[in-house]
């Protein structure tokens, strides 16, 4: 009996996470108030972290929270809090152009599902040891890892340069 309870709780949590992702995403793209968009995005990203956890990778889930909510969203919040009249003017309402991404995403999702048809889908995710990820990043995939870090450094230097140019003017 408890087994079924736990299973049901598991499915319920999965459904709630999906709901959070979808509702958050819809709020993020459709709300007129910038701050609602922001918190919709946060909710959606939190939900994605929950999905990663459900897929058996707590490390990716934690990293999703740290990087996307702790860094990206906080940076966005910082930008938003410097904006004047948040929520009053708001962002532009949806127009016909908004249909383009919807069509694209639906096509891609459909194509993915079509491609998965008939393939063997595992019921539970394959657990990966976190220390192995570290080994792989620093041994086998060291070069791509370093290239990405150089890219980030370039981006940071670029941002500082742009800020300095603006200050001089």
């Amino acid at each position, binding site marked *: 009996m408890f087994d079924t309870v*736990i299973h049901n709780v598991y499915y319920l949590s999965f459904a709630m996470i999906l709901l959070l992702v979808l509702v958050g995403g819809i709020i993020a793209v459709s709300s007129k108030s910038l701050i609602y968009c922001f*918190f919709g995005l946060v909710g959606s990203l939190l939900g994605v972290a929950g999905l990663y956890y459900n897929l058996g990778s707590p490390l990716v889930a934690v990293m999703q929270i*740290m990087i996307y909510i702790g860094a990206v969203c906080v940076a966005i919040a910082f930008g938003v*809090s410097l904006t004047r009249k948040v929520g009053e003017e708001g962002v532009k309402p949806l127009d016909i152009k908004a249909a383009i991404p919807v069509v694209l995403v639906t096509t891609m999702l459909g194509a993915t599902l079509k491609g998965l048809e008939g393939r063997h889908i595992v019921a539970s995710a394959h657990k990966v040891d976190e220390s192995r990820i570290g080994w792989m990043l620093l041994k086998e995939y060291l070069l791509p890892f370093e290239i990405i870090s150089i890219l980030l450094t370039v981006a940071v230097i670029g941002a500082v340069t742009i800020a300095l140019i603006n200050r001089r003017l």
Partner: protein
Amino acid sequence: MNVSFVAIICYLLGISAVVGLNAVILVWLERKVAGHMQFRYGPMEVGPHGLLQTLADGIKLVSKQLVIPDKADKPLFLLAPVVSLVPIFAAMMPLPLSESVQAWELNIGLLFIIALGLLNTLGILLAGWGSNNKYALLGGSRAVAQILAYKIPLLISVMTIIMMSGSYSLRDIVLAQNHGWYVLYQPLLFIVYITAITLETNRSPFDFSEAESELVAGFHTEYSGMGFSLFFLAEYSYMFIAAALASILFLGGWQGPWLPGPVWSLIKIYGIIFLLMWFRWTFPRLRIDQMLSLGWKILLPITLVNFLVTAGVLAL
């Protein structure tokens, strides 16, 4: 499966009890420490030495009306205290009080707690925005500026400890300190870490988002009754978590002679919390720009240099 189900219920009840009791004790302790630092007694009326004062206050707060300002953003306003409090229940799970008292041994426990600790700022931001109040909004945006300044030094100091212990698991970090607590090897880092958690828990001298002499009450200006008390439950629980992490990372967690593990853990945790309360009545509040330059120009270089030196020493 039955056992694990019962265990889950027990852990949930235990964690709720820790969250509640900890807040009751800390509010009392805060008032007592404040009183004695200022040569007065603090609460004395309800119970012996005012011990039941917080309970009386709690009953009062529960029975009070939650006033929602007319022009406030109602959903955001109501969501904010919840967003502040809920991550705590998850963040308490991987905290070990002793070798056996731990709800969930997670091999990335440290990262998990730090990631969930970030969500508190979002609650403060929500409250600031939802209240439709100048002071609350200022408090909320200050909290966001603050998180950028302390999180990076905090993470680098934690990374140094991870490098020394070779694990993200809180239990392994404690066990790695069998031969000597990390505070002996990294005294400077301990000071940086304590500064960073004072910033993280919004304590004076870094309580910019509340700053009662500047912003009335900052982000919780408009909250009354349970809305207000949920914020305080969250704040005191974050203090508990931050102090517990400090004791695990630097002071050897549950290790100590004679007394059993959980007692040592609690002694260390409440010792660090007492230190944070002491700071409040010793240092005047900084200006926000002073805090930012403290974070970026002092703490960050110290932790970076310390990180490199530690890496060098470990590699030799």
